[in-house]
């Protein structure tokens, strides 16, 4: 059985510099993760807050033995945002491309194709691999079967599945946090900071449904794909991505490490996750080619 690696995805939410520093200190010291993504992915307006902490965070993570990946903005728009994508793509470290904007300055060097880049089939995956993609984390709406089929046909890259966290479902030019507070994006007052896991969006019948995080829309529910490691290995899928929430992410990483090492059964891992202080109930519909909000039997 081949080793399944664990990746911590970028923080989607507007966490204060102190919160980010504390979070990554614990991740560096305690979490059994192989790779950690850092960087602002959702909103360029937040970058002046988080940019100053990244050097310290990266140093700490690397000293803790983690491979650091620099994640780029998913929808760069302003000159400053575009420049930041270009600068990050020039870095010697591994970089996650979250928009085609990053490809010209990263082509030829290795990169991760993040879940905001549309890779739906083996031919598109091969196209990106030829440009330098080493890891591909396909869009969250793709099933495990589809990702596995791509992986089998593209053994030269690692495929990663979005396994844990609120699912990133959409991006807009409009900021919903600002809109809820009667503000415009340009004068948003950074109200998204009040919702460190995103703000729940319920239906008129109080069904839990979605969550907003500035210009991003996520699921209210929390993805919890808990596959047996041999099921992953059979499809050639070599990485699981855990997406940060405010719950105990060190414990989430430990649960997935035990699962990936076949020291815990999928049902037990799922139960252990459900005991954490999560922003929503557990779902895994997408990986089973069902609507994302559904809950199905473990693989």
């Amino acid at each position, binding site marked *: 059985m081949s080793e399944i690696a664990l990746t911590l995805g970028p923080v989607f939410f507007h966490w204060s510099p102190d919160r980010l520093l504390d979070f990554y200190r614990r991740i560096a010291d305690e979490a059994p993760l192989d790779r950690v993504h850092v960087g602002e992915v959702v909103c360029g307006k937040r970058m002046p807050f988080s940019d100053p902490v990244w050097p310290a965070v990266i140093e700490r993570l690397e000293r803790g033995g983690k491979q650091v990946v620099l994640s780029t903005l998913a929808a760069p728009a302003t000159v400053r945002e575009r420049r930041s994508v270009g600068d990050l793509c020039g870095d010697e470290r591994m970089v996650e491309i979250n928009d085609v904007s990053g490809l010209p300055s990263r082509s030829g060097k290795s990169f991760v194709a993040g879940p905001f880049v*549309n890779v739906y089939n083996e031919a598109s995956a091969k196209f990106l691999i030829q440009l330098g993609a080493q890891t591909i984390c396909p869009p969250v709406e793709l099933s495990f079967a589809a990702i596995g089929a791509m992986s089998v046909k593209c053994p030269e890259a690692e495929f990663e599945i979005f396994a844990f966290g609120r699912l990133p479902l*959409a991006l807009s030019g409009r900021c919903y946090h600002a809109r809820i507070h009667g503000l415009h994006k340009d004068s948003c007052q950074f109200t998204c900071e009040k919702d460190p896991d995103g703000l729940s969006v319920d239906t008129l019948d109080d069904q839990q449904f979605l969550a907003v995080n500035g210009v991003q829309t996520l699921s209210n529910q929390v993805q919890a794909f808990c596959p047996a490691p041999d099921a992953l290995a059979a499809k050639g899928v070599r990485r699981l991505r855990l997406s940060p929430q405010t719950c105990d992410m060190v414990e989430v990483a430990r649960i997935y490490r035990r699962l990936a090492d076949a020291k815990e059964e999928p049902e037990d891992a799922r139960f252990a996750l459900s005991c954490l202080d999560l922003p929503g109930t557990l779902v895994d519909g997408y990986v089973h080619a069902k609507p994302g909000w559904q809950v199905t039997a473990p693989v």
Partner: protein
Amino acid sequence: MTTTRMELVCPAGTPATLRAAVQAGADAVYCGFRDETNARNFPGLNFSRDELAEGVRFAHDHGSKVLVAINTFARVDDVDIWKKAADMAAESGADAIIAADFAVLDHVARNHKQIRLHLSVQAAAATPEAIGFYAARFGIRRVVLPRVLSLQEIAALNRAIDVETEAFVFGGLCVMIEGRCYLSSYATGKSPNLNGVCSPPEMVSYDEEPSGTAARLSGFTIDRYGRGQPVGYPTLCKGRFKAGGKTSHLFEDPVSLNAGGMISGLKAAGVTALKIEGRQRGKGYVSEVVRAFRKAVDAVEKGGEAVDIDRLLAGQSEGARQTSGAYEKKWR
């Protein structure tokens, strides 16, 4: 600022609508095959290979162009279906293929050099770097812009790129960046990228309740209407939701896009083509909207204003409510 005449690009869901759009003054029509290779995969819509060839002949005889949308993302193990659609479009004599998937773009660029490639809005390319990448790799000649850019941003973009831009002026208003929105598949299992549908009709229910009608999608209540109130279609991002202690149309009001009043602004921003959305609409609708926009575009091209377009189009918008969307910066 461009001095070329702007092109009016109009929807053709069926051969009859194609003829109607051409006769009403469309410079170009766009259409797709009757399968999952295009983003309007509804029963009863779209073209067979023969219908497309016939449509191309008709359009060319009347001085119009035909653009073929092959703009969903190809399915694993079935990429050949998308490649074959591109082959058929090229063989039909169509003027351009509109695509988003790297695999489809690559196939067309390698095998059908004679046909123009347009980058679909589903590719969500909105920066000079992204558009430049598609131009360098695949030779795209035009990019269809996401409906989340302001006029200022479009003008800046046009100054930085050397491919044409096409902007939506009328019809549906996607408030999420197209091609990167999975809300529909989250609720229903069917999505624009994978299936060519958003908020699909087979998942819709209208439930009569004591207080009125609840419009639901896949069991999620998207909106509720009082007795006698007109009932809207439960498109996910146009619904009413509860968030932050408020009940509101959080993402967007149930409005449709009408940028008829912005045609001169779009021209000044350097936009090459104006796109009318609505391949699922009937012949009558398409004729009326195309005719109105033909007049408006011609007026702007003569140096005037697109006067009266709202009056010309009264009654053709969703819920009769319209917005110029993200073209005005305050929308955000």
